[in-house]
């Protein structure tokens, strides 16, 4: 049994063997926002914050997250009010099929929290580990750039 605080809510779960935190989030806790694609840290679609660090939840052994605070994409918005990254992605057409979007939102919100005024290069480097299978990178960067300017 391990204890996790996920999006501010305490949970006790019993991961099986070396299962990933991603599996625990999706299959045991029904948090389907973090996506399962490559399972090897290449695509970023499972990105979460683990004690404030941006990580791929597919590469975190769930038992090793015992005691951690996890923020998933479900915890990025403030209730019904979207995070400004989510708002920007909607308004600028940064979402196509949507599969990479949760990982992009988590990574971009982490970027803005740690680098308030990122350049386009900063944005591209920060999102280097988030693969968009629609290849919609231009729209994603255009969505995020105004946020850098306003902060």
């Amino acid at each position, binding site marked *: 049994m391990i204890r996790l605080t996920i999006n501010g809510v305490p949970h006790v779960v019993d991961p099986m*063997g*070396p299962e*990933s935190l991603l599996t625990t989030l999706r299959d045991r806790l029904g948090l389907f926002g973090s996506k399962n694609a490559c*399972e*090897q*840290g*290449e695509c*970023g679609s499972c*990105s979460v914050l683990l004690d404030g*660090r*941006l*990580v*791929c939840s*597919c*590469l*975190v*052994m769930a*038992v*090793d997250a*015992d005691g951690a605070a996890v923020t998933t994409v479900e915890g990025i918005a403030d209730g019904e009010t979207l995070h400004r990254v989510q708002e920007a992605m909607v308004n600028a057409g940064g979402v196509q099929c949507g599969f990479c979007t949760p990982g992009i939102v988590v*990574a971009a919100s982490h970027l803005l929290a740690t680098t308030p005024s990122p350049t386009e290069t900063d944005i591209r*480097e*920060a999102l*280097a*580990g*988030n693969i968009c299978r629609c290849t919609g990178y231009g729209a994603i960067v255009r969505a995020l750039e105004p946020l850098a300017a306003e902060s």
Partner: protein
Amino acid sequence: METLLPRHLDEALAATAAHPEATILAGGTDLMVAVAYQALRPAVVIGIRRVPELQEWDGRFIGAGVTYSRLERGPFAALAQAARTVGSPQIRSAGTIGGNLGTASPAGDSLPFLAALDAEVLLRSQAAERALRWDEFITGPKRTALQPGELIVGARLPEAIPDRQAFAKIGTRTAMVIAIVSCCVLRWDDGTTRVALGSVGPTTVRPRAAETMISTERRPSSAALDEFARLVSAEVSPINDHRSTAAYRRHASGVLARRLLERVL
């Protein structure tokens, strides 16, 4: 599966003594891929990311648990650049220098810097402590001298580290690639030059003839730089694989080493 999450080095060493065959988990960036793709099912896992002694970075000692994110912000330019080329921010916030050493991939990005400096790898078990030079520790591709019950504690660098240092690697894109060739060049004020290359041999390669030749050249001419590049290319032993050909790697080794040397002259 039994899991131990020690909070101090002595607890961690007690755990490895009690379970000498346990699987050691740090950042998980290699281990969890083996879980997903090679059906690795460890009987005992010792998670070491909570051990404060392994997080220490004190001058010339870099604890095994120091992540690439921290190395990126550190004082050694070539190591920082190497760390910056690892994976993505997600990978760099998890992966550690101790994991890079333990995995001992010929493509390990921090390894050329450690090899160029002849860094030592510090190992501890409950009974003993030992320091092995990098090439005594890494014995082959993905093979090390680590014994059951031992933990990698960190890397120890020598006192003399030149400011003139550079690292670069070749891959298909800037991020998320395993190096086709990587290279670190260090140059001291007296001309002494050390070169180390990754992904062009079973372990990191030190092209000794090229180092010796260029170290005597205080202001290398274009012809001397050509000869340096030729020697580097002659001394690597690359293979063909799905990422590149041996011929390309051999050529690129000389080009990359020369380019980095020119940057630090």
